[in-house]
C-alpha cells in the first residue's frame, strides 16, 4: 500500500515540453565539467576520446542520482585515497548528476529511496534480481542506476573485491553466485537499466526550468503535525538557491526556517534548512513545467522522521493547493482549512457540501465550517477560477484504519554505543467501505490521514512470551516509536538485547465509536553501516 500510494500521488512527468515558467538555465560549460573530472579523477580513470568529447574509464559508463554519485565519491575518498576539497566534491556531484543523471521517468516507482522513505516492502522486480542484489540492497538502489553491460560486470567484480564474503552468504553459497551475477545478472541489468536510453536523451534535450520564485507549501512533520506555508527560492548561482520557509502548523504554531537548495539534473530539488533550530532536509522532484515540487522533508539527523511535502509555484493565479483535513463525515459540521494562493472568488466544495460559515479568509488560507449531505464519494473543490481542483472525500462511517508504515524496521541504539536509535513515525489513514459495502477491498474510499491514539502490543504469542512490548520500545501520543537501549539485557532470555516484534495500533474516533488498525514492526539491532542510500 505504501508503495502504490507513493507512486500514485506523483504526476506523470512527460517529455520534450517547453518550459512554461521560470527562466531557462544554462548548465556548466562542458569543458569546465571535463576539467573538473580531469583534475580529480584521472589518477586512476583513463581518459580517451577527443578533448571536446572525452570519455573517462568507468565514470563515463554510468548514470545515477545525485545521492548515487555522492556515494561513489565518498567511496573514492574513504577507500581509494582521493583527496578532495568540499567545494570540489559539491561541484563534482553536481556536474556528474547533471550530465550523467537519471531522467525523471527513470526514477519513477523508486523515489522512496531518494526521499529516504524506506519503511516499505518492495514489490520485487523479479526473483533473480531479488536474490542476487535485493538480499543486501533495496531494489531501488540498483534500479536508480544506469550502466553499460561491462560496467554492471565491473560492479559485480567490485563486490567480490570489496566484500569477498558475498559469495559465501546464505542465498549465494548454494549456487555458483559469481558466475550467475557476472554472466546473467549483469547482462540483465544492462538490458533493464542501460546506460543509453530514450528517456535520458530526451531529458537532456529538454529545456531546463529555473525554480527561483515563491512556492505555496504543505507538508507534515512528525510530532508537529500538518503545516502550510510559503517557501521562497532566491538564485545564488546556477542551480543553487537560498531558501526561506515560513508558515504554521495545523494547531496554529508558527514555523520558520532558512537554508540552501541545489537543483540537480534539472529537476531534483535537494535542500537543507534549519527550521526552528532543527536541521531538516528536503528531497523533491519538480514536475515537467517546473510549477510543482513533490517529495518529502525529514530530520537531517534522523531521516526516518519526516513526512510528505508539496510545493506549488505562485504564478499570480488562483490556486487551491490542499484542504486540511480532506475528508468530511456526512451530516456533521466540520472545520476545514483551504490552503492556496490568490484565493479570490466563490468557494465550491462540490455536490452536497455546504459552506455553513466562513471563519476566516485571506488570499492564501480560508477556514470554514462545512457540512456534507448525500452519498459517499470524492467531491472536487474549487475556489474562484482555480484550475487545480482539490479532492474532498465525504463518508458516512469509518470502516478501517491503515497504519503507515505498514511494515517498519526500527533499531535499538544509544546507551553509550556508537549508533543512535532508529525511530519510526507513524500515521493513520482512514477508509470507508466504498461502493461494494465491504472493507478491505480495492474500492475502499481513502479518506486521508486521521488523528489517532497510538499503542503497541506483541506481534504474536512468541513475542508476548519474550515480553517484546515491555523491552523493545514505546510509542508516544504523536505516533513516534522510540526503540529500547542497545546492549545486552540480563533480564531477557539469553541476555538478548532489546529487539522485538510488535504490532503498532492506531485507534481512530468515528463519532462515538473507535476503529483500530495495525502495522507490523521489527525492532532490530544496530546497522553499523550508514549509507547515503540503503
Amino acid at each position, binding site marked *: 500500500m505504501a508503495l502504490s500510494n507513493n507512486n500514485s500521488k506523483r504526476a506523470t512527468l512527460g517529455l520534450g515540453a517547453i518550459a512554461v515558467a521560470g527562466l531557462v538555465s544554462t548548465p556548466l560549460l562542458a569543458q569546465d565539467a571535463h576539467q573538473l573530472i580531469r583534475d580529480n579523477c584521472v589518477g586512476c580513470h583513463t581518459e580517451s576520446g577527443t578533448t571536446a568529447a572525452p570519455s573517462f574509464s568507468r565514470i563515463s559508463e554510468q548514470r545515477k542520482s545525485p545521492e548515487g554519485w555522492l556515494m561513489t565519491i565518498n567511496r573514492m575518498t574513504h577507500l581509494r585515497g582521493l583527496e578532495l576539497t568540499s567545494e570540489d566534491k559539491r561541484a563534482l556531484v553536481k556536474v556528474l548528476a547533471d550530465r550523467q543523471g537519471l531522467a525523471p521517468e527513470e526514477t519513477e516507482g523508486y523515489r522512496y529511496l531518494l526521499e529516504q522513505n524506506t519503511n516499505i516492502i518492495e514489490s520485487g522486480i523479479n526473483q533473480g534480481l531479488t536474490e542476487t542484489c535485493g538480499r543486501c540492497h533495496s531494489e531501488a538502489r540498483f534500479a536508480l542506476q544506469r550502466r553499460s553491460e561491462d560496467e554492471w560486470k565491473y560492479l559485480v*567484480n567490485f563486490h567480490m573485491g570489496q566484500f569477498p564474503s558475498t559469495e559465501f552468504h546464505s542465498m549465494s553459497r548454494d549456487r555458483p553466485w559469481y558466475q550467475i551475477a557476472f554472466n546473467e545478472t549483469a547482462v540483465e541489468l544492462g538490458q533493464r537499466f542501460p546506460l543509453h536510453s530514450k528517456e535520458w536523451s530526451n531529458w537532456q534535450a529538454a529545456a531546463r526550468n529555473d525554480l527561483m520564485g515563491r512556492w505555496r507549501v504543505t507538508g507534515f512533520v512528525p510530532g508537529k503535525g500538518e503545516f502550510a506555508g510559503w517557501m521562497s527560492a532566491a538564485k545564488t548561482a546556477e542551480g543553487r538557491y537560498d531558501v526561506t520557509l515560513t508558515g504554521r502548523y495545523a494547531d496554529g504554531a508558527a514555523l520558520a526556517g532558512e537554508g540552501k537548495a541545489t537543483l540537480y539534473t534539472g529537476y531534483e530539488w535537494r535542500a537543507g534548512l534549519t527550521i526552528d533550530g532543527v536541521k531538516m532536509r528536503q528531497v523533491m522532484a519538480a514536475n515537467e513545467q517546473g510549477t510543482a515540487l513533490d517529495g518529502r522533508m525529514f530530520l537531517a539527523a534522523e531521516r526516518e522522521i519526516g513526512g510528505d511535502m508539496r510545493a506549488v509555484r505562485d504564478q499570480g493565479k488562483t490556486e487551491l493547493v490542499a484542504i486540511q483535513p480532506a475528508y468530511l463525515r456526512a451530516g456533521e459540521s466540520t472545520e476545514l482549512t483551504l490552503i492556496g494562493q490568490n484565493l479570490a472568488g466563490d468557494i465550491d466544495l462540490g455536490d452536497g457540501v455546504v459552506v455553513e460559515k466562513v471563519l476566516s479568509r485571506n488570499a492564501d488560507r480560508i477556514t470554514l465550517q462545512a457540512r456534507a449531505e448525500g452519498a459517499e464519494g470524492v467531491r472536487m473543490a474549487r475556489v474562484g477560477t482555480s484550475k487545480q481542483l482539490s479532492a474532498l472525500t465525504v463518508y458516512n462511517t469509518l470502516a478501517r484504519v491503515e497504519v503507515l508504515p505498514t511494515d517498519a524496521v526500527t533499531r535499538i541504539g544509544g546507551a553509550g554505543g556508537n549508533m543512535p536509535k532508529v525511530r519510526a513515525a507513524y500515521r493513520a489513514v482512514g477508509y470507508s467501505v466504498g461502493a461494494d459495502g465491504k472493507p478491505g477491498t480495492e474500492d475502499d474510499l481513502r479518506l486521508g490521514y486521521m488523528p489517532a491514539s497510538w499503542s503497541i502490543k506483541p506481534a504474536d504469542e512468541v513475542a508476548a512470551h519474550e515480553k517484546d512490548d515491555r523491552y523493545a520500545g514505546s510509542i508516544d501520543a504523536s505516533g513516534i516509536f522510540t526503540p529500547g537501549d542497545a546492549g545486552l539485557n540480563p533480564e531477557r532470555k539469553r541476555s538478548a538485547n532489546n529487539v522485538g516484534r510488535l504490532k503498532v495500533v492506531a485507534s481512530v474516533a468515528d463519532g462515538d465509536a473507535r476503529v483500530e488498525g495495525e502495522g507490523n514492526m521489527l525492532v532490530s539491532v544496530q546497522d553499523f553501516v550508514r549509507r547515503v542510500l540503503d
Partner: protein
Amino acid sequence: MKLNNTFKSAGLTGSLALGGILSAVAPAAMADQEYLLTVTRPNQLHVVDMSTNTIARTCDIPGPFGTGSIALSPDNTHAYVLSNGTKDVYGFDIRNCEITFKAEQSSRTEQVITMQSITVSADGTELYTVQNPITKLRDRYEVKQPRLAVFNIADGMNAKAVRTYPVDRRITKIATTAQNEVILGGGDLKAINPRTGEIRMVSKLASWERGPLWLPPDAFAMHSQGEQANEYIMPYSTAKFTDESMDMETAEWWWGMSRVDLATGQAERMEIFPFEFVIFNFITDPRDSNILYGSFNTLSKHDISQKKTLLVHEMEHSYYDLNISGDGKTLYVGGTSSDISVHDSDTLEKIGSIQLTGDMSTSDLRVATIKD
C-alpha cells in the same frame, strides 16, 4: 660380600627408584594432554588446559583479526591461524607462543583472502590454503579463479606458495586425509591431490541429482572440527517436498551432512534428523559415530541411526561452535562471545565456564592433543 650386599642393595634401591620414576611418568604419557585452542578479538590465540579448564597461555597474533580459523600440525604442537582479515597465515608453537611461520598471501596488485580454508599435510611438512585472488587494476577489480596454495612449512617467516592448483569457488573449510588428499568444502565436496592438482568428487551436494522432490542443499562449513573423531563434516539443510509443486509450507525440512573419514578419505552423505532449530556447527562423539552434538542457541544431542534429537539444552546466549574431549565426556561450546561453556555430554548440563579476554566471534574451537 658386603660389597655384593651393598651392590645388591643399591641395585635394588636403584631399580625400585627407577620403577618409581617409571610409574610416575608412564600414566601421564598415556593420558595425553589436551588443549583447547581458540582466537579472541582483538587477536589472541588462547591455549586452554582441558584438564583444569584454565588458560595455559595466550599468544598475540600479529595484525588485525582474521576469522579465527585454526589448523593443527599432525603432532598438534603447532597451530596455524588466519590473521589480517584472512589474508595472512601465522604459525605458532603452542607450547611457548613462538611464531614459527608466516605467509603473506596478498601483494600490492593482488588481494588474496582465504575463507577459513587452512590445513596441514599428513606428514606435517606442507601447509595448504585455498586462495581467493582478485587482481587490483587501476580503476577496477578482476576476479581470478581460486587456487589451492602449497607452502613449505620449513620456509618459516617468509613463506611463499611453492605450488598452486585451480579449485572451485566458494570453498570454506578444508582438511587433510591420511592419504594426503585435501578435502575441499565447497558447493560440492571434492578432494584434491596437492602434488598433482588432480581433483575428484567426494560427495555431490550442489550438483546432487535427487530429482524435484529434494531442495538443492544449503551446505556450509564455517567450522568443521572433527579432530577427535578424525573426520570432516559438511553440514547442509534441505527440504523434501510432498510433490512436484515444491510447496515449502508442506515440505519436510532436514539437516544432513557429508561426513568424510579422514583415515580413509571415504564419505557418507545422509539426512541426519529433522530441521527443528538452527545449528551452526556439528561434531561427532569420538566413542560413537551415530551420536552428534550441535550448537547455536541450543546445545543438542542427536542419534543419527534413529534420525532423532535426543536432548536439547537452552544456552545462555548464542554459541557458534563446539568441540569435545577425547574421552567423549565433556563438551566445550564456544564462539560468538567471550566465554566457553563446558557441558557434560551425557546430560548436556553445564558443568563449567572458561572466561576469555575478548570475543571469539567466528573463531574455531580446536583440540590439540600433545603426547609426551
